[in-house]
C-alpha cells in the first residue's frame, strides 16, 4: 500500500553536491522543500583515516544504494561487456559524493561554453570531430559567472584569482575567464614539493598556480581550516574543513525551517499526469512505499541515476520515459579520461605522505583552446595537476619503472628506497559527446528492486586519444624539468563507470537535441528541473562539481523567481 503524503512545493531527488546546493535558494525564497536522500547522515567520527576501508572497500557499504545499481559498460553496441566494478565510485549520504570528493572547484574555461563556434571561427568547421554531437551551450561563461561567484561563497571555496574583471594576476590561473572578485578564502597552503614543481614549470615556460578547492584554508562560517592530514580521497573531513554540502549549504537550508530531509529514501519513479506535468515522486523507505506530491520536482542524482529515473518513469504522456519524447535522454554522454596519466620517479624523497588531492599546483597552458591547435589533429586539451598525496598501500603498489622485478627481495629493496619518490599526475582531458556514446537501460542486469541498471555504451574516439597522447608528452616534459629520472605513461583506457560523467539530459535551446532548456527545466514537462552534470553539454578539462553547483543554484533560483509560471 502506498502512503500518500501531504503535498509540498518542491521535491528534490538527491541531497548531494547538486541537490544540497539547489535546496538553499529555494528554502530562502520561502518555498517548502523536501529532500529525498537514499543515504543517511554521516559525522566526523565516520571519517577515519583508513586506507583499506576508504580506498579499497568502498566505504561505507551499508548505506550505498549506488553499489547495488552499478552501471554496466561496453565500448560499442556490438562489443562484449567490460568487467563490472564491485564498488560504485559515487556514494549515497546527505552530502552525497561531496562527502568524499577531492573538492577541486574549478570554473569552466570560456571556450568550454562555445566549442562549436570558437573552433569553427578559429580553425574552420572541419575541425569538429566527425560523429560528435557537440553544441555550444545556450549561454557563455558571462551568464554563469555570478552563479559561480554565489556558490564559491555559499559553499566555501579557497583559491587564488587569476583574472578579476580582465585584470590578470599571475599568482592565479591567467587562463581563467574573467571573474567579479577574489575567492572568499586564500588558496590552500603549498608544499615544498608543489613549490619544486612550480619552479620547474617556470623553467619550461609554463604557468603553475594553486588550484581552487571547496576546502577551508582558514576558519570560516563556523568550520575549521584544513588540517592537511590527507585522507580526502574517498574520505570525509574529520574537522569539516571540506565544504561538502552536508556541512555547508544543507545546514543553511535547514536553518530556514523550509527544508526537510528524508534519509533512506529510495526513489523509484517520478510521476506525471495526463497534461504532461510531473505530480510528485514515488519512493520506498524501510519497506514502505510513499508518494510525495509536489508542485515541482528537481532531479538531482548523479548522471547515471538522473538518466535511469527518467527512463524508468514511463506514463501515458511519456511512453519512452519522462521527458524523452524526443529520444534525447541518455544521449550526449561523456566522461573524463582519467586513466591515461604519467608516473614519475624522482631521485630523492618528495615527502608526499601528507596533503590532499586539492593541495597542489596546476598548469593550464595546454587546456581547452589556450594554445594554437592549427597544426594539431585534435581540439581541446588537458589540465595538468600535481598534488601531495600518498598512502601506504598505494605507495607499495606503485610501478617499479622496470628497475626491479614485481615481487621478492629486489622489489622490496626498490620499494624501501622509492616509496616516497614516485608521483602520478592527475590529468583531466577534454571529452566530446558523440552519436554512439550513450546511456540506456541494461536489458538484463537489474537492481534489488527489479529495475534495470544503466548501461554505458561509450569509448574514447580519435580526438580524445590524441588529446591523451599530447597531454602525456607535456606532462613528461614537466616531470623531466623537475628532475624525474624515469617516467611511465599509463594506458589510454576506455569510458567505464566514473566519477566524472556528463550528459544524458543535456541543456540547450533546441528541444530536438536537448532534454532541458537553458534554465534546466524539461522541454516536455515544464515543472521538472534537472540538476547535476547530466545537463552539461561539454566536459571541460577540469573537475565538474563547481559548475554543477553553479548550474544547480541557477536552476533553483529561476524556479523560485518564476514560481507561478512554472507551477501554475
Amino acid at each position: 500500500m502506498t502512503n500518500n503524503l501531504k503535498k509540498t512545493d518542491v521535491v528534490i531527488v538527491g541531497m548531494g553536491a547538486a541537490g544540497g546546493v539547489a535546496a538553499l535558494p529555494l528554502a530562502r525564497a520561502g518555498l517548502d522543500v523536501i529532500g529525498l536522500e537514499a543515504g543517511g547522515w554521516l559525522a566526523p567520527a565516520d571519517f577515519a583515516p583508513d586506507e583499506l576501508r576508504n580506498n579499497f572497500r568502498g566505504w561505507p557499504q551499508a548505506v550505498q544504494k549506488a553499489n547495488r545499481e552499478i552501471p554496466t559498460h561496453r565500448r560499442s553496441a556490438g562489443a562484449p561487456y567490460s568487467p563490472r566494478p564491485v564498488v560504485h565510485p559515487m556514494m549515497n549520504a546527505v552530502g552525497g559524493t561531496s562527502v568524499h570528493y577531492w573538492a577541486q572547484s574549478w570554473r569552466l574555461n570560456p571556450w568550454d561554453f562555445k566549442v562549436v563556434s570558437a573552433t569553427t571561427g578559429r580553425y574552420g568547421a572541419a575541425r569538429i570531430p566527425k560523429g560528435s554531437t557537440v553544441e555550444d551551450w545556450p549561454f557563455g561563461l558571462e551568464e554563469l559567472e555570478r552563479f559561480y561567484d554565489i556558490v564559491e561563497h555559499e559553499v566555501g571555496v579557497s583559491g587564488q584569482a587569476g583574472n578579476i574583471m580582465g585584470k590578470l594576476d599571475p599568482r592565479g590561473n591567467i587562463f581563467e575567464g574573467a571573474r567579479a572578485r577574489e575567492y572568499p578564502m586564500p588558496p590552500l597552503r603549498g608544499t615544498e614539493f608543489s613549490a619544486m614543481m612550480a619552479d620547474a614549470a617556470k623553467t619550461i615556460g609554463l604557468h603553475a598556480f594553486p588550484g581552487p578547492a571547496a576546502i577551508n584554508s582558514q576558519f570560516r562560517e563556523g568550520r575549521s581550516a584544513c588540517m592537511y592530514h590527507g585522507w580526502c580521497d574517498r574520505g570525509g573531513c574529520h574537522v569539516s574543513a571540506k565544504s561538502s554540502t552536508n556541512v555547508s549549504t544543507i545546514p543553511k537550508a535547514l536553518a530556514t525551517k523550509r527544508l526537510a530531509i528524508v534519509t533512506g529514501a529510495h526513489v523509484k519513479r517520478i510521476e506525471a499526469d495526463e497534461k504532461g506535468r510531473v505530480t510528485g515522486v514515488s519512493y520506498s523507505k524501510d519497506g514502505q512505499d510513499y508518494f510525495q506530491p509536489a508542485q515541482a520536482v528537481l532531479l538531482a542524482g548523479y548522471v547515471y541515476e538522473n538518466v535511469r529515473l527518467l527512463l524508468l518513469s514511463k506514463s501515458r504522456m511519456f511512453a519512452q520515459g519522462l521527458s524523452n519524447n524526443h529520444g534525447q535522454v541518455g544521449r550526449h554522454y561523456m566522461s573524463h579520461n582519467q586513466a591515461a596519466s604519467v608516473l614519475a620517479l624522482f631521485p630523492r624523497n618528495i615527502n608526499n605522505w601528507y596533503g590532499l588531492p586539492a593541495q597542489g599546483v596546476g598548469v593550464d597552458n595546454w587546456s581547452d583552446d589556450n594554445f594554437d591547435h592549427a597544426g594539431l589533429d585534435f581540439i581541446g586539451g588537458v589540465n595538468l595537476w600535481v598534488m601531495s598525496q600518498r598512502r601506504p598501500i598505494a605507495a607499495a603498489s606503485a610501478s617499479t619503472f622496470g628497475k626491479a622485478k614485481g615481487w621478492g627481495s629486489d622489489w622490496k629493496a626498490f620499494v624501501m628506497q622509492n616509496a616516497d619518490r614516485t608521483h602520478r599526475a592527475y590529468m583531466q582531458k577534454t571529452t566530446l559527446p558523440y552519436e554512439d556514446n550513450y546511456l540506456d537501460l541494461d536489458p538484463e542486469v537489474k537492481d534489488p528492486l527489479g529495475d534495470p541498471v544503466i548501461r554505458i555504451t561509450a569509448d574514447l574516439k580519435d580526438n580524445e586519444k590524441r588529446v591523451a597522447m599530447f597531454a602525456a608528452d607535456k606532462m613528461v616534459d614537466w616531470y623531466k624539468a623537475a628532475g624525474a629520472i624515469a617516467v611511465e605513461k599509463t594506458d589510454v583506457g576506455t569510458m567505464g563507470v566514473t566519477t566524472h560523467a556528463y550528459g544524458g539530459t543535456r541543456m540547450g535551446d533546441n528541444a530536438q537535441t536537448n532534454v532541458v532548456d537553458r534554465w534546466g527545466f524539461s522541454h516536455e514537462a515544464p515543472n521538472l528541473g534537472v540538476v547535476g552534470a547530466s545537463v552539461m553539454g561539454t566536459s571541460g578539462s577540469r573537475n565538474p562539481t563547481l559548475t554543477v553547483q553553479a548550474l544547480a543554484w541557477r536552476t533553483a533560483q529561476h524556479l523560485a523567481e518564476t514560481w507561478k509560471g512554472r507551477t501554475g
Partner: protein
Amino acid sequence: MGNNSDGKSPGPSRRDMLKLAGAASTLAGGLAPAEAAPAVKSTLRREALENLSAAEADTLEAFCARLIPTDANGPGAREARAAHYIDHALGGALASSRDSYRSGLMRLDQHARQSRGASFASLAPEAQDAVLTEIEKTEPEFFGLVQQHTIQGTFCDPYYGGNKDYVGWDLISYPGIRLSASPADQALAPHATPVRKSAYDFPMFGRGGAALADHTSAPVDHGQMPQGMGDMRHDQ
C-alpha cells in the same frame, strides 16, 4: 583448473591431507624437517584459521613470504602477518575471493608436488621462487590477487590484523597517521619520529568517538572544531 590433471575433485587428495597433517604435527612438536625450516621458523604456534584449511594456510603463508620476503633488509609479509589478514578477510570483505584462494592454492601446491616433488610450503626459498615465477605466467589473475592482498596485509592499518608491529609502515618509512600535518610535516626534509598508531587509536575514531567528535576539539592540535555537528539530524 589447468593443473588439475586428473580432472576430478578440485580438493587435495586424502593422501595429501594425511601427509600435510603429519607435517603439521611434526612442526607443532618443534621437530621441523630441515627443508621446511624457512617456511615455519617464526610461526611455530598456529593462529586460529577462520577460512582457510591448515594446508591452504601453510601454502599461502609461504607464498606471501616470497612476495615480500624476510631478508637482509628486515622483516616482510610473514612478520606483518599478511596471510593472517587474508584468512580473516576471506570471511568478510574479501569473501568473493574465497573460492579463488581455495582452488588457486591447491593448484599451486599440486604444481609444486608434481614439478618439484614436495609441497610448496616445504620447498627451499629458491625453489618456491621458481614455482611462483611459473605461476605468475600461467595464472596471472590468481597471482595478482594474492599479491594485491599481500600488499594490503603488509601495509594496511594494523586494525585489520596485518602490518603487525607496523613492520609494513616501517619498511617504507611511512611517517604515520596524523590528524593534522604542519608545514614542517610537508617539507622535503625527512621526518624525525614516525607516529605508530592505528586510525582507531585516535579517540575520535574509537568507541564513543561519535559523541567525542561532536563536543570536543581534542583530536586536532590547531584550528577549531566545528560545533553542533550532532544537532544536524533533521529527519522527517
